[in-house]
């Protein structure tokens, strides 16, 4: 065990501070799945459906430019309880979901948990999401594919089966959660972000500071003395971001803010910079938001 930790330590030391010559993880340079959220029917803030309840599962896709339609297939099963590697079904899936989503609409489905599910167990969703060609997914091998040019993405999501003792609400981004160089940064649905007053502007190649604020309530207390950790993923389809991940640790004192540097793309970049922010607590719940920037 010590060898495992030492190796990881050595790897961390050796790779820390190195510019990654491989594709940076924060760059949405192709269609990417960025997360999934769970909302319990009748109590949408709760991410832990109880046995017999229905959960609404939504997948977040990131696009390098325009949003594309998607097709998808998912199966739901009881999770096997493995500790590493891709999670696997402990028994045959009890439900299968297939569908398509128009451009701009996220893949989504509703799953009703069997009443016999044990509280505090894990429901596993496995599947395949494609933006080109029909998806297929082999339940036996948990391998998916797309019949098209886009290889698609094989995905998994673990959903904690709730009980009165372990219910978990999804984290939320408040309306003032994001600032760009200290100025409020609102969401925009406008086709031309430069025409929207809520959208900040940046000069090509200029350096900026993005800040995300989380409410203290986002870190729920659970168990005897534990408090959630919030993992923030920040990605962008243009420019250069300092890193992909930030954390709000249980010990962090309010106000809970993280900052990340971003350099705007050079002049001539075709894409409007779109940021994707995903907040995850360490008990399986997630929420997301997107923001755009006007380059001029």
């Amino acid at each position: 065990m010590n060898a495992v930790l030492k190796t990881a330590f050595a790897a961390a030391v050796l790779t820390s501070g190195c510019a990654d010559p491989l594709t940076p993880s924060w760059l949405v340079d192709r269609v990417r799945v960025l997360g999934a959220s769970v909302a319990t029917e009748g109590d949408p803030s709760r991410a832990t459906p109880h046995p017999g309840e229905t959960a609404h599962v939504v997948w977040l896709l990131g696009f390098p430019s325009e949003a594309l339609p998607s097709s998808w297939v998912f199966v739901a099963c009881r999770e096997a309880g493995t500790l590493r590697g891709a999670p696997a079904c402990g028994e045959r899936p009890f439900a299968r979901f297939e569908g398509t989503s128009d451009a701009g609409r996220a893949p989504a489905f509703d799953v009703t948990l069997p009443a016999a599910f044990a509280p505090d167990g894990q429901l596993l969703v496995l599947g395949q999401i494609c933006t080109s060609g029909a998806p297929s997914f082999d339940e036996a091998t948990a391998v998916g594919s797309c019949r098209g040019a886009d290889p698609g993405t094989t995905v998994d999501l673990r959903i904690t089966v709730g009980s009165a003792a372990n219910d978990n609400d999804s984290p939320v981004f408040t309306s003032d959660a994001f600032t760009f160089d200290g100025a409020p940064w609102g969401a925009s649905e406008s086709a031309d972000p430069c025409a929207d007053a809520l959208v900040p502007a940046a000069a090509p190649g200029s350096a900026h500071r993005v800040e995300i604020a989380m409410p203290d309530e986002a870190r729920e207390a659970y168990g005897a003395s534990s408090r959630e950790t919030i993992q923030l993923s920040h990605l962008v389809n243009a420019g250069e971001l300092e890193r992909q991940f930030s954390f709000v640790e249980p010990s962090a004192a309010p106000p809970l803010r993280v900052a990340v540097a971003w350099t705007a793309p050079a002049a001539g970049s075709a894409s409007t910079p779109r940021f994707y922010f995903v907040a995850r607590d360490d008990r399986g719940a997630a929420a997301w938001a997107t923001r755009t920037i006007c380059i001029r």
Partner: protein
Amino acid sequence: MRSLPQRRMLQLLLAAVVSGTSLVARRAFAETTTKAETTAEDPDLEEEFGATARVEAPPREVTKRTLEAKELTRVPGTFGDALRAVEVLPGVTLPPNAQQPLIRGSNFQDSQVFFDGAPVPILYHFGNFKSFVNSRLLERVDFYPGNFSTRYGRATGGVIEVRPRDPRQDRWGGVVDVSLLDSSAIVEGPVGSRASMGMAARRSNIDLVFKSLAGSADFNTVAAPLYYDYQYIASIRPTDRDRVRVMMYGSSDRVELVFAKPADDDPAIRGQFAIGTQFHRIQSSWRRQLSGAASQDIQITAGSSKFDVVLGPNSQQRIGVIDIGGRAEWTFALSSRVRAVAGLDVKNEFYRGTYTGPQPTDGEGTLETKFGTQRTVSAVAHLTVAQPAAYVELGVRPFDALLVTPGVRVDWFSNLGRVAVDPRLSARYEVSRRLAFKAGVGSFSQPPEPWQAAASFSNPNLAPMRAIQTSAGFDYRFTDTISVGVEGFYKRLEDRVVDTVGGAHPRYVNDGAGRVWGAELLARVAPRDRVSGLVSYTISRSERSDHGGAYRLFAYDQTHVVAASCGVALGRGWELGGTFRLMSGRPLTAIAGRTYDATSDLYIPRSGPLYAERSPVFHRLDVRLEKKWTFSSFSLATYLDVQNVYNQQSVEGRRYNYDYTKSEVVAGLPVLPSLGLRGEL
């Protein structure tokens, strides 16, 4: 490393144990073996028992390879470290981040390293540049790649026995050695006419330059990498028949950094990173010649070890271990043709501490995955492991040229509640003074790591692993200094402990098998004259099977391993040496696919056929140059040890991008010089 246990009632400390190193009942037996006045297996005995000629007795093991004091500190590329020097011997490789050398296709934990008969808990300091002991305090290193004596157990691989020397008895003196890597000092000398003592201490110098070499805005250095070790040896000869040796030794490594931001490829790696490992030992031994035909060797060892590792907020290990062990060995010359050795060998470990982190695994047979995608397990370590063993061995010479050594070892593993019985047999036939044939077969048992068999954490029903080892070969001496040895070997592994698929309950099972076969050649020129050196070659194949599946390559299998090392005394105090290594690349596993894990926002790779590919051939040249000035009362030397002289970019592995669709090679160390200055009194 041994750690991670689980809750258990603390058992009473087992009684201190007795044990010993091998004293050979020599004279009567010797007369029939070498036709010399003595055949001491241990050169110490020459002095003790008045030998007038040094003729080594044939080893109890099929294969025993010894690196003498003169060689231990002069193998180029080892920075003068004795336990790095074994890398040039056949059957040995030392991959980066290895806990200890890999021997004949066995995994790290399957072999054991002993310091004067006692197992060593932590062999190397950071980076594997230096081991825990100052090499200038050593008399020799004995290496048994397989088919070793019943004196050794709890291992299915090989054994390395590090033999300290007695401190000098002629006068007080010392050595001071300062290099870029570390600084050390030795002081030793006589205490009266029957005793001597020596002390050594070493401290790394890396921390002095760490910030300037590795300074980065990405991490803060709380404690720069620092290691130290120390050894104290007192040797007393109260009578002509007795020798008492008391040793204290220990080692410590510490580093603590705080990373400023999470790693993009694995955000679980963030925040505090600290490693603090140390061990301290006191060890005493008493050798007594009971009569002309019987001797006794008793040894007791006690100490403590700490393994503290913090790797981000989700992985923490704080384990303390108290070790108490010992040996007692009695040797009898039953007749002029029969020698008997009987012994007890006891090892007790008391674990205390906590572990939180990914499920421990040795990494063999699985694809490495990111910490952030692994579930966290926790355990409280209150574990007692007692492992007493008894062994007996005969040395029978039915006629002068043939030595047959049958033996049996019985081990008890308290945490498993199981007994292992290991019969072993070896034979050596001396066709002439130059040529000898040898062969051996035997059973070898090894307990699982304590945490693998801890009841509430993993699988208390595990059984010991077992290996059947066979080997045969010959030794030929061209002259007193030039010799060649060739051995072939086959090793079958049974009941190997493997992880369950995905780490599911009970996490570890005896569901693995293995087989290793190959041949080794060692040609050497002993360091008696101006020139010394050796050439070694190993061809082997090491395979494993998991859960009844087809055999695959072992993670560290290397088909061809060649090492050539030589040293030349050029005169006027100049010495020049070089070591060249050439070896097959290590196996690699291709990525067959990936799954996006929405829970962690990371990708989990899907393995292709395990170890179906190989990294490119590895080769490297190391050179060592030393100039020594000798004055009337002291000497001064300066040396330059350069590792990887022509800066060969060896491939240590592959590093992947975030979704495993692109990769790049991870290169090994570039050219690495170490300049040093040494003064000797």
